[in-house]
């Protein structure tokens, strides 16, 4: 094997690792978001990150880093909309997040549009991969820690409150987790497809699960597996990895419909 081959192989393994970590945690968080009927929120949030991704691409820094302040802005907007107005998420999506896309395209060089929109994990650096994996682990622990309490909140805020659960605190931790996963997710599937990264594995797991542990483990499993196979297909076919991950994920979902427990 030549040095170039080894480099290519190394790069491939880095992409796989980052993909599997992000995919697994996104699928896990997705099960919580599906329970809260918020699975689609990652979509508009992803769109809102586009100006940040555009800046990152222009100035050559990490896209997740560029995305992060924008996703925090999005989380604050969601919070404000939920607390202060009676406007629905739909209106929020239509007004604010679409303008994220619009702003991004004012200054995003067109040749880099693909990376911004559907991600590019093929050239992820060792350091990036390391940071991604290191971020994913505590995020996973955080989600695991809030999982039961968030599920109770999703079932009934009244019941949760009667149990002395601080709903605001848990919602904040939950939104924070979404922010991180969206910022990481744009790395592999871009600003357009982040919703799919969290929603589809969770929906697949929902179809196949009889209880909560199957559901949450299923989210992790299908999230990680879709990323793994998507990146593998990218290696074989040369099509962009982001869309391939989502297509694999959708394929699993379609299969799950056949086995769906009625």
């Amino acid at each position, binding site marked *: 094997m030549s040095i170039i081959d080894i480099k290519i192989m190394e790069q491939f393994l880095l992409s796989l690792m980052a993909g599997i970590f992000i995919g697994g945690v996104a699928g896990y968080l997705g099960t919580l978001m599906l*329970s809260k009927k918020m699975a689609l929120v990652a979509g508009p949030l992803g769109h809102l990150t586009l100006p940040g991704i555009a800046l990152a691409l222009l100035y050559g820094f990490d896209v997740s880093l560029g995305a992060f302040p924008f996703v925090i802005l999005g989380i604050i907007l969601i919070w404000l909309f939920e607390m202060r107005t009676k406007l629905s998420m739909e209106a929020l999506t239509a007004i604010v997040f679409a303008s994220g896309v619009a702003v991004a395209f004012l200054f995003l060089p067109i040749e880099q549009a693909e990376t911004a929109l559907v991600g590019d994990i093929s050239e992820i650096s060792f350091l990036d991969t390391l940071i991604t994996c290191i971020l994913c682990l505590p995020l996973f622990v955080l989600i695991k820690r809030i999982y039961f309490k968030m599920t109770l909140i999703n079932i009934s805020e*009244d*019941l949760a409150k*009667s149990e002395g659960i601080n709903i605001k605190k848990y919602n904040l931790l939950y939104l924070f987790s979404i922010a991180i996963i969206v910022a990481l997710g744009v790395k592999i599937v871009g600003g357009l497809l982040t919703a799919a990264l969290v929603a589809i594995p969770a929906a697949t797991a*929902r179809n196949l*699960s009889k*209880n909560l542990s199957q559901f949450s483990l299923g989210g992790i499993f299908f999230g990680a597996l879709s990323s793994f196979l998507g990146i593998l297909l990218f290696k074989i076919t040369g099509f962009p990895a982001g869309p391939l991950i989502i297509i694999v994920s959708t394929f699993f979902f379609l299969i799950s419909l056949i086995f769906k427990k009625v």
Partner: protein
Amino acid sequence: MSANNINDRIKDMENLVLRVKNLNVDLEKEEIIKDLSFEVKKGDVLTILGPNGAGKTVLLRTLLGLLPYRGEIHWMPGIKIGYVPQRLPFIKDIPLSVKEFFRLKGTREKEVKEVLSLVGLNDDFLNKKMEDLSSGQFQRILVAWSLSLNPQILLFDEPTTGIDIGGEETIYGLLAKLKKEKDLTILLVTHDLSVVYKFSNYVICLNKCPICQGSPKEVLIPDILRKLYGEEVKFYEHHRH
């Protein structure tokens, strides 16, 4: 004031589970509860009685700290409350076994088995899906859920909702039994008069503003009931045996 009197008062204070004074709740500028005051002592079974839309559920939710209010609500410090909601419509969106439903609260399996047997369900229910339960079984699970981790007071929101007559009988039979076995204080909301006579020692009639309160025999006289439910509504006479 004599020493005895003071002792009595201290004892009263210790027995006081909840004190509500001049409670007012407005929602979207509409007055829902007006100037309500009452006390709940240890071992009381207090019923909040009133027609639909009288503000009963609002009162329960306010007591739980879920709604803004004016006035005073004082719970006994450190009290553990078990809340049994009317319905849990969103629970069907989440795949959840009975065992997992209890795990959300942090109840250990050993205790889950105990509270399940208290409400007349066996261990086979542990692995059943919540969405597969009949409405009667679901209600029992909710009661068991609220009973786990040893609350001192149970708050019930219309425990009869959605249960057939047979089930309804057993839910109240069950409550009476639980009260004896667990030394509970119970606060329940209902529009069902027969429950009040059978089961509670104190009643508050509520139709936005408080109409009456006291022991059921004292306060539930025809005049009051007419005032509570309107002229047209027939009331059930209770039978003194």
